[in-house]
């Protein structure tokens, strides 16, 4: 290398490179230079000649390469200074090799100094993956992830040991020769990491954020794919998918979409994860997460508050301070993207719009049993119809945001969806709202979509409530008959223990008051009970006027001997207008004549019985009321007195207490 250094611009320290290092560095230099020159195969021979100024590695690929070494920026600056590129202004082979060696030193943990160039170091490691840069260089290299580095390094170490035995002087003189000899045989060794021009496309703003899984995923991301062998492409693809699935389980924030053109799409496993998170915050997937709960949750993501605020603004489409499931997924996805370095969009991307997300939901929701709650809110959204149809193909095949088309198939889809619901009324009602709302959604302008979002949000809630009202109405019609009125009075009078009395009469009344008194349960024979009932009646009559409260017991006793005592009872119920006409028929003959039988009088008697029952109940309640009111006033009086006593006692206490000086 000294020869090269001498031929070059006189960099200071001698650079001792092993043969492996030689090969590696020259290859890398070739790539860097070749990138500048644009031609494959121009690298090694020119580098070997080491003509100063003729071959320089372009700053761009070199910078990429250095960044790929994953050293901090200051270290890289130091390295560039030390290697002399800054001094001479370009990356000649000398500078480049020195820089690479220093990178290796830094990666091994040694300080970045000239002295470390003398050490035996492993090769510098560059975390890059395959891109179409390979096609440019025409190397038959395969895709590699970080894993492939390790075996290579091991083999290199072995060769390195071997080199030690050789004469170092020889080594330094041989670098110009060896690259000439080795390149054709070296492809198997050099498949480490070709330069990735695509790397610069990536967010260079994020340095250390989960490089490995993301790197491994890059092969998937590149749409064309390198023209290298497909066999080589498959294992890393598996690797990448494995890594991706691992990262899903371990580090949810690492998840990004698989689409280079649409980083805002949510994949299936991402959605599953978001839904699980939603459920952990709020068990019912069809309701909201409140603002404060969401705030606490998203603050854990350690993004800054203004960014979180902006993400909220984007994702809360209806600005209600709460997140529904699609809004939550959109917000989560934005947070994940931001953590991985994507700049936040100006407006909500179409794939994160709530309707779009809700459309995608029924697919996973079908597995859950919670589909019904979703199916109710679904018909309120217009676009889901078409999106559901496309869902069946696959989410990945959707290239464009589907614009709802008013065709017959969408109607079929509507029917299909609605049959799941079970409500005919809802089907009809929502069909009309859908048809009129579809034209509104044709435009994708975010402003109008936001308005239509807000417009839809309100009708959505309204239609939901209307469906519930309809359901309730439907169900209200089912219970057939209102409770019959006599039963009410019956229940009210139950306190009077008239149940026993009225129960036999109730069926009679219920069936339309038709059955005549003979349907009554066996009462004491009128002829027999006349005298007995008279005897009963008299003391009862005596008792009756004494107290109003006794009306209830008398009422109880009297109806037992209903037929004979009716007219008498009525005499003492002056407020009962109807039976008063019976009074003149007076005591003994009346009951007999009444019993013998006129159905309409019996009917009258029964209704009057009920009236009496009501009236006695009323009277009783009034009395109870009066008693309680009296009691209340007495107690209040007592309370006042006690208050006064207490005040007097407190005054005394104050006077008796020794005065404290404060």
């Amino acid at each position, binding site marked *: 290398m000294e020869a090269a250094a001498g031929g070059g611009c006189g960099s200071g320290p001698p650079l001792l490179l092993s043969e492996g290092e030689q090969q590696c560095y020259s290859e890398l230099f070739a790539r860097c230079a070749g990138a500048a020159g644009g031609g494959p195969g121009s690298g090694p021979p020119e580098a070997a000649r080491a003509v100063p100024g003729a071959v320089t590695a372009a700053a761009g690929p070199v910078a990429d390469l250095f960044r790929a070494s994953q050293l901090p920026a200051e270290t890289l600056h130091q390295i560039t200074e030390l290697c002399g590129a800054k001094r001479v202004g370009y990356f000649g082979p000398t500078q480049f090799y020195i820089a690479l060696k220093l990178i290796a030193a830094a990666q091994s943990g040694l300080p970045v100094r000239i002295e470390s160039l003398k050490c035996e170091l492993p090769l510098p490691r560059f975390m890059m993956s395959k891109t179409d840069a390979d096609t440019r260089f025409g190397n038959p290299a395969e895709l590699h992830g970080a894993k492939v580095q390790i075996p290579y390094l091991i083999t290199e170490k072995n060769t390195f040991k071997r080199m030690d035995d050789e004469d170092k002087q020889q080594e330094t003189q041989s670098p110009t020769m060896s690259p000439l000899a080795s390149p054709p045989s070296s492809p198997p060794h050099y498949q480490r990491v070709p330069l990735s021009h695509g790397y610069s496309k990536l967010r260079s703003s994020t340095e250390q954020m989960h490089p490995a899984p993301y790197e491994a995923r890059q092969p998937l991301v590149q749409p064309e794919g390198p023209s290298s062998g497909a066999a080589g492409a498959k294992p890393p693809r598996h690797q990448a998918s494995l890594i991706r699935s691992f990262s899903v389980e371990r580090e949810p924030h690492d998840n990004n979409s698989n689409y280079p053109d649409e980083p805002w799409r949510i994949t299936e496993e991402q959605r599953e994860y978001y839904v699980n998170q939603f459920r952990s915050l709020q068990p019912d997937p069809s309701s909201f997460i409140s603002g404060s709960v969401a*705030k606490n949750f998203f603050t854990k993501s350690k993004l800054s*508050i203004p960014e979180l*605020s902006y993400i*909220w603004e984007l994702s*809360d489409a209806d600005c209600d301070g709460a997140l529904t499931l699609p809004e939550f997924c959109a917000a989560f996805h934005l947070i994940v993207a931001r953590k991985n370095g994507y700049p936040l969009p100006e407006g909500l991307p179409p794939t994160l719009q709530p309707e779009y997300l809700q459309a995608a939901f029924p697919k996973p929701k079908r597995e859950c049993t919670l589909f019904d709650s979703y199916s109710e809110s679904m018909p309120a959204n217009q676009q889901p119809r078409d999106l559901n149809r496309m869902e069946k193909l696959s989410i990945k095949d959707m290239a464009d945001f589907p614009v709802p088309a008013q065709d017959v198939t969408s109607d079929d889809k509507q029917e299909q969806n609605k049959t799941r619901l079970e409500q005919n009324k809802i089907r009809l009602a929502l069909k009309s709202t859908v048809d009129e709302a579809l034209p509104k959604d044709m435009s994708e302008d975010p402003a109008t979509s936001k308005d239509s979002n807000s417009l839809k949000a309100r009708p959505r809630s309204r239609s939901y409530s209307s469906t519930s009202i309809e359901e309730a109405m439907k169900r209200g019609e089912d219970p057939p008959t209102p409770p019959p009125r006599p039963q009410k009075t019956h229940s009210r009078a139950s306190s009077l223990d008239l149940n026993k009395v009225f129960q036999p009469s109730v069926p009679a009344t219920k069936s339309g008051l038709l059955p005549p008194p003979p349907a009554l349960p066996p009462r004491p024979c009128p002829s027999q009970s006349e005298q007995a009932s008279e005897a009963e009646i008299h003391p009862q009559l005596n008792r009756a006027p004494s107290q109003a409260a006794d009306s209830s017991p008398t009422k109880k006793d009297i109806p037992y001997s209903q037929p004979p005592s009716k007219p008498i009872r009525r005499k003492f119920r002056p407020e009962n207008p109807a039976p008063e006409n019976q009074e003149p028929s007076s005591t003994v003959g009346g009951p007999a004549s009444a019993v013998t039988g006129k159905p309409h009088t019996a009917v009258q008697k029964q209704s009057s019985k009920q009236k009496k029952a009501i009236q006695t109940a009323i009277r009783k309640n009034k009395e109870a009321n009066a008693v309680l009111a009296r009691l209340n006033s007495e107690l209040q009086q007592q309370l006042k007195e006690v208050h006064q006593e207490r005040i007097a006692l407190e005054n005394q206490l104050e006077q008796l207490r020794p005065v404290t000086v404060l």
Partner: protein
Amino acid sequence: MAVCVAVIAKENYPLYIRSIPTENELKFHYMVHTSLDVVDEKISAMGKALVDQRELYLGLLYPTEDYKVYGYVTNSKVKFVMVVDSSNTALRDNEIRSMFRKLHNSYTDVMCNPFYNPGDRIQSRAFDSMVTSMMIQVLSRAPCCRAGEALWA
């Protein structure tokens, strides 16, 4: 030909203030500050009994030679102050009212954001864009007047 929009908190410090063109910012800030006195006058003039019935739109607070200042107060004593160019004679009261209503709606949306602490400066981009659209809209009328004058001149 400048327009300024300011949102003042209950404690009379600005939550959001923006003006076009930006070189005369200090003048507009001063104008808004002095208009707060007028706002307080108007509020207290309504009387305590009418607090609920008080109308939110306060109308023209005071005119100056070049500008007119309009005010609007919410029920939580958050004030919106708008400075409008006097040469913009096409602006009617209804339009000012609708502008205040839009402001109020956007302010409510900002409030709904749980990451926004009441009392912080308003940094919402949606709010910004709404205010920008309002300012540009108001600005777009003035050239019509100027063009009309130029025709006649």
